[in-house]
């Protein structure tokens, strides 16, 4: 029975693909500002009743019954413990006396909305999670796992200090930055995994629809609440954990957390949500 399904879906995947290569337009240079405008218009037109900042509440802005359950959780949210742990970790100095505050502008307070940044020295996107681990390594501490609680606690605290501040992702005048942005966009729209879905299949074409018990979140503002305490995981989840689990859900083998593609994907997704307020840490189904 199992192999029949694999063959059937593999054949399906083949059949669904355009046989003749689509006419590839001259590689037009991407226009991020136009992309962001079109992206935000798509969602505001699809959900005219929602204000722009409502999109940061993901599935809860899509369904009244879910919204009520969220409000109840927000009275005393389950991420409270992670938030306090993050605050405590953030102030505890490393063995060499330094602390995270020394690695970040403004002591790391109220800067989450600027991340991910494009590091022109390295020529690559640097996400908040990556910067935190690099800070640890620079100070002789072992890096944290990108998908476990410690990293989630740190990013929860940093997000909390930025609550309400609009996403402010910048693309410097550097062709490599544009390429990283475009690479993130390409990843977002590319179908992968045996289920042959792309991020867009769920979060652009079907936000607000049910996928069994859950309601699909709109792609606009989907990272604003990160990191999230998911009832599904019974614990905190970083952006890395969300990307890798999404991949395995559609039967795609996940890349390493903080692989270039994920860093570019986060760069693209954050950029097109510029202007929407940070609402992390968040609670999700």
């Amino acid at each position, binding site marked *: 029975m199992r192999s029949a399904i694999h063959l059937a*879906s593999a054949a399906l995947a083949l059949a669904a693909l355009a046989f003749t290569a689509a006419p590839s337009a001259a590689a037009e240079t991407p226009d991020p500002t136009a992309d962001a405008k079109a992206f935000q218009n798509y969602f505001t037109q699809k959900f005219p009743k929602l204000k722009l900042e409502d999109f940061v509440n993901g599935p809860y802005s899509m369904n009244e019954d879910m919204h009520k359950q969220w409000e109840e959780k927000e009275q005393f949210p389950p991420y409270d413990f992670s938030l306090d742990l993050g605050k405590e970790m953030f102030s505890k100095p490393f063995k060499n006396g330094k602390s995270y505050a020394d690695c970040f502008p403004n002591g790391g307070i109220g800067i989450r909305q600027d991340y991910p940044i494009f590091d022109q020295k390295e020529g690559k996107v640097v996400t908040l999670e990556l910067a935190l681990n690099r800070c640890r390594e620079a100070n002789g501490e072992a890096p944290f796992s990108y998908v476990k609680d410690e990293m989630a606690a740190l990013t929860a605290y940093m997000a909390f200090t930025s609550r309400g501040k609009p996403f402010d992702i910048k693309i410097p005048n550097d062709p490599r930055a544009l390429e990283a942005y475009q690479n993130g966009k390409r990843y977002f729209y590319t179908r992968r995994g045996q*289920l042959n879905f792309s991020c867009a299949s*769920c979060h652009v074409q*079907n936000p607000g629809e049910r996928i069994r*018990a*859950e309601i699909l979140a709109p792609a606009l503002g989907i990272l604003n609440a990160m990191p999230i305490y998911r*009832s*599904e995981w019974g614990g905190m989840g970083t952006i890395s954990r969300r990307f890798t689990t999404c991949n395995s859900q*559609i039967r795609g083998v996940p890349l390493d957390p903080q692989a270039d593609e994920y860093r570019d994907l986060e760069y693209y997704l954050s950029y097109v949500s510029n202007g929407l307020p940070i609402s992390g840490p968040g609670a999700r*189904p």
Partner: protein
Amino acid sequence: MRTTQSGFPATRRLILQGAGMVALVGLGNLPFGLTPAFAANDKYPEDAFKAKSDADAIKSLYGKTAEPSDKVKLDAPEIAENGAVVPISVSSSLADVTSISILVADNPNALAASYKIPAGTLPSVANRLKMAKTTNVIAIVEAGGKLYSATKEVKVTVGGCGG
């Protein structure tokens, strides 16, 4: 949107609402003919929490049966966003309430929580419960020595596209 075909490989998420995986651990089954507990203010009602069905749990806890009443307000979602965290609250306009209990009919053990309400405490409680699958949530309010109840079905299933 086409969701996954049926029969995808067993989901790897090892969490409660994988109803298929709920292994009914052989809890000592209860001696028949339960002796009703006294008024619900003594020690931890071990037997009531071990009872399988809601009827047995109520009998073990209160020693009497409840009658539905619109004076018991049970607030629970239509579709639980997640079976692990289902926000449920119970309140009542009945006079001198002494106890409120909440049962989830098809959970391995029906009784989820039981609250003692001394005089001077308002007859209302909110909490978050786990539900194994779609089933009835039953609120029991003990007031003036009599039992009143309200029931609501809550739909529960796993989320996501299965992996």
